[in-house]
């Protein structure tokens, strides 16, 4: 089973080296790192220290959703069977990748696997509440019962890419992916993962949460 691990990066110079050091060496050649117009030394660090990985450089900052799409398109071009997405800010543990791969190997009927963070643990109150609210709304609107719809650690089989493909350029992409999976009744499962929050000022803000909420409502009634 050929797989690709897609990691969108934006100004991750602080964490990228450690993230790649923690990555089991067997996965390095499967990594597709998408630098989303970083203004720091993210791309330089990757180029100099990890030539085995594939680095795609978006010269202009397009947002996480577009970076994920660029990585996915490369993975499809590489004829990967499974695409796995994770964050490059040390939030997700590279050792969990094998759990995703094992699940895809064992459960051939499963189309998509979502990481589910232990909500509440290590998470501040505002993101916790926001995450919970969005998850409940998606569960109710789309009858797709997940514990964590906002987790960026997830994977799907390449054959369902067209069914889950998102148009959102920002953080709403992950939610759109869930909704597309729900609409197409893709078979899913969840894997509980550990999360570490090192940088509280990055990631989804309250403002992003409001935009995602508005988009969920639009997708429910007009998509």
């Amino acid at each position, binding site marked *: 089973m050929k797989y690709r691990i897609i990691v969108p990066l934006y100004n991750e110079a602080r964490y990228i080296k450690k993230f790649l050091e923690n990555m089991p060496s067997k996965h390095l050649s499967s990594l597709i790192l998408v630098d989303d117009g970083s203004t720091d030394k993210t791309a330089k660090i*990757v180029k100099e220290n990890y*030539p085995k990985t*594939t680095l795609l450089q978006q010269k202009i900052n397009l947002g996480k959703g577009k970076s994920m*799409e660029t990585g996915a398109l490369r993975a499809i071009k590489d004829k990967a069977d499974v695409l796995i997405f994770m964050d490059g800010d040390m939030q997700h543990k590279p050792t969990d990748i094998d759990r995703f791969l094992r699940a895809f190997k064992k459960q051939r009927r499963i189309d998509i696997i979502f990481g589910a963070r232990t909500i509440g643990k290590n998470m501040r109150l505002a993101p916790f509440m926001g995450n919970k609210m969005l998850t409940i709304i998606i569960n109710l609107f789309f009858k797709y019962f997940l514990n964590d719809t906002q987790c960026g650690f997830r994977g799907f089989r390449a054959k369902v890419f067209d069914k889950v493909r998102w148009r959102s350029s920002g953080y709403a992409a992950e939610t759109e992916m869930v909704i597309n999976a729900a609409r197409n009744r893709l078979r899913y499962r969840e894997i509980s993962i550990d999360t570490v929050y090192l940088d509280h000022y990055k990631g989804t803000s309250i403002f992003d949460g409001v935009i995602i909420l508005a988009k969920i409502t639009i997708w429910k009634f007009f998509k």
Partner: protein
Amino acid sequence: MNILGIQIASIAFSLFMIYFTYLSYRRKYFDMPGFIIWTLLFLALAIASVFPEGLIPVAQILKISRLFDLFMVVGIFFLIVITFINFIHTQKIKRKLENFTQEKALKDPHQKG
């Protein structure tokens, strides 16, 4: 003929915008048709500000009692149209930029291994 303060402000605004339009044309921000359209528009605003009575028949047809209200209604419609056109153009440019950036990233990957 008594000229109100708002008329003076409107004429000054129109003249400033005609100058700004000319400046933008000289800087090649837009071409001749764009220059003519915008100049005519601000010229029309200046003329309407000097001779507002000329618009009274239009206001009567539209059942608008005050000329000032007519200006407000036309102004709001104009703003909505311009905002909509701007939105369409921004979306088009955004999509083109996204496609171009993604294609370039996919075309020139950095991989030595």
